[in-house]
């Protein structure tokens, strides 16, 4: 670690033009993230060609600003509208939107912003100081380890199963089935496309997420409004900046979730979507009052937001040091390195320190500025809640349609979104949890691909999954976790079976 270079990098970044680029890109990132359906990945992808003519450092400052701002921005619509601006913000809905409904939208927005900023800052510092060392561990991962990690993540998902484990498992399996449509990862041929070439690209995460979380919510709201129209009172937005005692209360959750995010970010392929859910599940598991999660607790906002922003710095580590992107936006950032003629991997650290250190510094500054900009704009974004349902609902509908379309410029995706909106509405009505379904859609391709590769390595023997210490550890931990949850549910049911109103069961 060369501190003189880092100091030089900060003097470069703090030049007015560079600061202006970071402020503009972070603001743009927050806006893109806040608009349902416009993802961080898309924002980075759209900005990449525009910044190609910038000097290299400024180009990356702009891209990183979008990346950091976008990951946080998703929480704004999640909290205010109950629609995840990005898939990574889906877990923020549970408590963020519940808080907004209770009249604490300002507090939820402020906490999400502060948690995102601090988590991003910590992850940026970790990226700066530990990237080569941590990346060396990830280099040892093969298909067995990746399968183990995905399996472990899935076992954690069961926590999000809600009242019924069987319904939770059904949701996870439905998510898996969704990913089997399209080009299969083993031989690269079409699977379950039914002769429609448009289905070769698969169902797409964004249209499915918009359907399950956006349109399904609109169905719910529409039916509720239709049956008994309620005039909303003006939402009072106050206490955006969290108080010191609140910060002390959330500090443990924030730090733990940040490190979960950084850890998951470092593992290639697992992005902020998984991190936010894992961080949320862990916060719920370790809480003294887990039953309150989902009803509007501040830890339920802090955990997913610090988890998903913790990923940003973590995901940069394998991308810069190994050339392996940690998640989708960093894959596009990797393309940016190649566009500028920069080699990624150890050569980057040997030959282009004049680029590497400003990137480190820029990431740190972008996260600090994100906190300031986010807090400043929170009140403005919170005003969205004041708009009457008769105006807001059509606008959200249109944004859902545009968001589904814009990702792949396909009207089929809009149809998919409407279909999953109806499916999501019915699943929710019958207590099927939607979050495990969404996360399993993210994890399934990784699980399938690595299962196939591992079994090929092991000549078809399932013992191959226990052939490496890291892979075996994750799988055993996953199994223990599953047993622990099932036994826990059975015991809880036995203890409280005599009590009326108990709804939690394994069934």
């Amino acid at each position, binding site marked *: 670690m060369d501190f003189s270079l880092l100091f030089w990098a900060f003097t470069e970044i703090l030049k007015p033009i560079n600061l202006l680029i970071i402020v503009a890109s972070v603001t743009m990132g927050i806006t893109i993230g806040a608009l349902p359906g416009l993802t961080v990945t898309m924002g980075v992808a759209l900005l990449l060609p525009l910044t190609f003519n910038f000097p290299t450092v400024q180009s990356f400052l702009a891209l990183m600003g979008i990346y950091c701002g976008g990951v946080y921005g998703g929480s704004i619509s999640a909290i205010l509208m109950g629609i995840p601006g990005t898939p990574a913000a889906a877990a923020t809905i549970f408590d963020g939107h519940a808080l907004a409904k209770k009249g604490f939208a300002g507090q939820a927005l402020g906490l999400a912003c502060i948690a995102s900023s601090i988590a991003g800052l910590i992850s940026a510092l970790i990226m700066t100081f530990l990237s080569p060392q941590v990346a060396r561990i990830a280099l040892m991962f093969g298909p067995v380890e990746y399968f183990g990690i995905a399996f472990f993540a899935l076992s954690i998902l069961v926590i999000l199963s809600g009242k019924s484990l069987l319904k939770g498992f059904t949701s996870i*399996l439905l998510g898996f089935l969704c990913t089997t449509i399209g080009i299969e990862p083993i031989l690269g041929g079409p699977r379950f496309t039914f002769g429609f070439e448009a289905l070769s690209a698969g169902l797409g995460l964004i249209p499915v997420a918009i359907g399950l979380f956006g349109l399904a919510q609109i169905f719910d709201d529409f039916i509720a409004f239709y049956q008994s129209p309620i005039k909303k009172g003006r939402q009072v937005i106050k206490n955006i900046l969290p108080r010191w005692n609140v910060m002390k209360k959330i500090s443990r959750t924030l730090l733990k979730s940040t490190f979960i995010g950084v850890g998951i970010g470092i593992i290639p392929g697992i992005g902020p979507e998984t991190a936010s859910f894992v961080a949320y599940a862990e916060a719920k598991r370790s809480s003294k009052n887990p039953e309150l999660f989902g009803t509007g607790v501040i830890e339920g906002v802090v955990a997913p937001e610090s988890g998903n922003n913790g990923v940003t710095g973590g995901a940069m580590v394998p991308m810069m040091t190994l050339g392996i992107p940690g998640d989708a936006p960093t894959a596009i950032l990797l393309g940016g390195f190649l566009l500028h003629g920069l080699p990624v991997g150890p050569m980057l650290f040997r030959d282009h320190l004049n680029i590497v250190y400003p990137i480190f510094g820029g990431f740190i500054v972008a996260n600090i500025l994100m906190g300031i900009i986010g807090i400043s704009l929170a009140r403005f974004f919170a005003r969205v809640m004041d708009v009457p349902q008769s105006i807001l609902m059509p606008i959200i509908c249109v944004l859902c349609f545009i968001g589904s379309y814009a990702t792949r410029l396909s009207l089929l995706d809009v149809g998919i979104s409407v279909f999953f909106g109806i499916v999501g509405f019915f699943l929710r009505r019958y207590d099927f949890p939607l979050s495990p379904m969404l996360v399993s859609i993210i994890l399934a391709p990784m699980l399938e691909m690595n299962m196939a590769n591992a079994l090929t390595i092991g000549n078809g023997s399932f013992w191959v999954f226990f052939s490496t210490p890291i892979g075996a550890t994750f799988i055993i931990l996953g199994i223990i976790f599953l047993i622990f949850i099932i036994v826990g549910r059975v015991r809880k049911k036995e203890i409280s079976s005599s009590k009326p109103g108990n709804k939690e069961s394994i069934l």
Partner: protein
Amino acid sequence: MQISLFRKKELGNSVIFISIGIIFLILSRGMEADVYIIGPGFFPRLISASLIVINVVRFLVIIMSSNGSTADVMSNSRPLYILTILLISYLAGIIIVGLSLATVLFIYVLMSILGNRSLFQKILIALAVTFAIKAIFKWVLVLPLPTGFWNIF
């Protein structure tokens, strides 16, 4: 009475999931690979078989259990049909007349259904939202938006 209705619907949805599992199980037959240990059909088979097993268990449990969840079962399906038809019409409208005109009409109609009585507000919001979307997506982000069969809007 409501519990009984709910149990019926629970049985119904477990049958639907079992059927989905069976369909995918049948469709994944024949997807084998020569070189690889497992073919592209292995994963769907594993998943659909698990879906069938889990929902058969659910089905049996629902039949045997005396109590059931009291989740909110919709009594009036009319709003669901209205919104579904509206959304499908909007999608069809985008394909036929393009995003701009379809959006103006969709917002106007939905606002009317939701009880907005101000003609001026409905027209203003429909036009403003459409213009904002066009400005952001077409002119700033340079995304080609659907223009319908006649490429007018």
